[in-house]
């Protein structure tokens, strides 16, 4: 345990990244490897949810395939030849044109080895059956997005203890086995839905294609998918898988898109055994024979190995991207600061730094303000000083003028100058009574001249 304590000091500094790199080997059995088992037991108690959607034109065998996958009549098959009862009573009822695309849902609780699965299958009858199928994909997309919305609303509730998850985990899209690649309606559909749901393309009624034709058709379909940038669900292996699982995953991935045949009936094989399959005059095709079709691989991926990955992908990638887009569209703004790690000391230091910075800023601000005020005051004082000066000057000139006027008047009247009232600048006294006007003028001019120097 010493190792642990010595690391404690680093925890704050390294920000919680302790443990990156080679895992330490223990010297004895601790027991936390039992954790997955505890998880396992808890999830078994809780049970699983799995919602699957099937989309394709009528007559491609969707209903039969669902019934085959779950080995029970999840859907009551309408119009199978075995029933012998055509839909409706006669031709009049049979030719009602499909009024757009419906969305129907069937749920079943299935138990196997104590594991409870709440399976929901959503069907879209009427897809692609009309003459104008331009918007056939829209009701399906809206249904998927409304399930996301419902989950989002539940996530935002105050009390979140009970969240029911009915988001679509996988969408099986049925492709007609034309041999010529994808049709316009297929491409339209997939382009509009591949970012919202795990797309699992399926080649329906594969018993019409010979083995070589199947390969060619699969290649063409994949070429079309790549060309249009459509994302389909592919099982990937990560570093934790053992080589056997990796090989299995690769084998399954190589078969995508799966070419399947479904059957909810048992037929007799040539050697007398009863198998699930279809009986033709030229032979019997077995649903569970891997040489005959890819049904086994599809079931493996969907139910036995990649169920959790499908659910995870829905929750982590598809739902999250939908949520992000929706919230951004509603005007939320991302605040990046919430992502920094919580570290008390660093936070404290940071706060201090911020505080100090703030104080410093305040100080500089105040100094600047002070300086500014001082400057203002100085300017004001200077201005008033100048004003006073000029007023003083003005007053002086006025006074001088008055004095001169007085002097003039006096000299005109012939009175002697008032003593002491003459400004100091007079060079020649004006004490003589009878002054010659010319002289007087000259004197006054002198006086004037002298004064102004």
């Amino acid at each position, binding site marked *: 345990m010493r190792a642990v304590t010595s690391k404690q000091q680093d925890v704050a500094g390294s920000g919680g990244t302790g443990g990156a790199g080679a895992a330490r080997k223990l010297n004895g059995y601790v027991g936390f490897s039992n954790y997955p088992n505890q998880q396992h037991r808890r999830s078994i108690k809780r049970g699983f949810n799995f919602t699957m959607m099937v989309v394709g034109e009528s007559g491609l065998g969707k209903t039969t395939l669902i019934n085959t996958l779950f080995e029970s009549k999840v859907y009551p098959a309408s119009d199978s030849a075995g029933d012998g009862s055509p839909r409706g009573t006669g031709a009049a009822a049979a030719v009602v044109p499909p009024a757009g695309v419906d969305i129907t849902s069937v749920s079943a609780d299935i138990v196997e080895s104590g594991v409870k699965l709440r399976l929901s299958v959503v069907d879209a009858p009427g897809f692609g059956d009309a003459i104008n199928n331009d918007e056939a994909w829209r009701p399906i997309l809206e249904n998927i997005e409304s399930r996301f919305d419902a989950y989002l609303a539940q996530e935002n509730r105050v009390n979140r203890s009970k969240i029911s998850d009915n988001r679509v985990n996988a969408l099986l899209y049925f492709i007609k086995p034309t041999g010529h690649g994808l049709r316009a309606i297929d491409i339209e559909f997939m382009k509009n839905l591949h970012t919202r749901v795990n797309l699992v393309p399926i080649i329906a009624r594969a018993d019409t294609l010979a083995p070589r034709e199947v390969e060619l058709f699969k290649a063409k379909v994949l070429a079309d998918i790549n060309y249009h940038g459509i994302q389909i669900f592919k099982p990937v292996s990560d570093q934790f898988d053992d080589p056997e699982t990796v090989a299995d995953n690769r084998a399954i991935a190589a078969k995508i898109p799966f070419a399947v045949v479904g059957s909810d009936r048992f037929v007799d094989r040539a050697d007398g055994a009863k198998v699930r399959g279809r009986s*033709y005059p030229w032979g019997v095709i077995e649903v569970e024979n891997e040489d005959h079709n890819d049904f086994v691989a599809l079931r493996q991926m969907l139910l036995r190995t990649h169920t959790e990955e499908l659910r995870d992908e829905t929750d982590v990638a598809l739902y999250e991207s939908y949520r992000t887009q929706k919230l951004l569209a509603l005007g939320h703004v991302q605040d990046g600061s919430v992502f920094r790690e919580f570290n008390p000391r660093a936070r404290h230091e940071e706060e201090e730094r911020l505080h100090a910075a703030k104080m410093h800023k305040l100080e500089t601000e105040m100094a600047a303000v002070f300086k500014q005020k001082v400057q203002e005051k100085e300017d004001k004082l200077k201005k008033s000083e100048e004003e006073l000066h000029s007023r003083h000057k003005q007053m002086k000139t006025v006074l001088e003028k008055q004095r001169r006027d007085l002097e003039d008047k006096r000299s005109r009247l012939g009175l002697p100058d008032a003593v002491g009232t003459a400004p100091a600048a007079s060079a020649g006294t004006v004490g003589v009574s009878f002054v010659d006007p010319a002289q007087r003028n000259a004197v006054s001019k002198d006086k004037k001249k002298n004064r102004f120097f």
Partner: protein
Amino acid sequence: MTAPEGQDYVGFDTITQQMERKFLKRGFNLNVILVGESGMGKSTLVNSIFTTHLVDSQGRRTAQEVIRKTTEISPVTQTLEENGVRVRLTIIDTPGFGDQCNNEGCWVPVIKYIKDQHAAYLARELKPFRDRIINDTRVHACLYFLNPGSRGLRPLDVEVLKRLTEVTNVIPVIAKSDSMTSDERTLFKRRVKEEMAFHRISTYPYTSDDDDEEDRMLNASIRDLIPFAVVGSEETIDVDGTSVRGRRHGWGVINIFDESHCDFVHLRNFMLRTHLSDLVEVTAQRHYEQFRTSQLRQIKELRDQQSAAAAAGVLPGAVVPQPPTAPLPHQPVAQV
């Protein structure tokens, strides 16, 4: 002929030989149009029926090829010869039919083509100096390809069939029927016939009053089989030493000539061995005549209108239209 050359023998029974000789010399035309979505097996079926590679599939080969936005009409003419009899076979393919998301009006080019051929024939017939043998480009048969496994006719099928059966002989066919078991096939055929009766779609062969007992029985058996559930193949496969034309699956081999496997033999016999001349005749007598009647009536109306207008002085110097020397301006859009 090897009839007793007695006094009472007139000899007009040699007319059949004379007609045969004429046919040998002249040969004849057969025009078949294939209507169906891409990937239904049209080209393969035609190549199987005539046991030679006559037409290439017009489907999309690479992802870069753009899906056609309209229905194109591509006729391919070849001359086939068998036992001295020559036939100028024209196969008209319709790539782009029913391939888009919105298929409204995808049948318009097809109907227009068929009517154009009738119009061309009528134009040549109406000429003052006309050829002794008019090259017959009228469509004698239309193979309409149904989707296997659908619950009967789709809305698109109903729309198109209603219009096609008015202008040509329509033979409904399921080309890739190797994905239907026998029970499913029977059920599907019954459903299709019910729906066609409901929509009053009448396909070839038609009932007519001057059929004799033998013809009637034959027609009834043919009508029973409609739509023909066939499988096409251009390859021959080795099965236990014998080479058969068929398809090899992992679970069995389909022999297209085996009647228990599919209706191919019936379709081929029906089209080529028993009803070939009937197809040509019915086209001439029923569809062409209907077209001709309606066209001439239209011309008459047009003429009446114009002469009335000219009489009223609205169109001074109106020219009464002469019998047209060019293909008539029939209005396909209004009528389809």
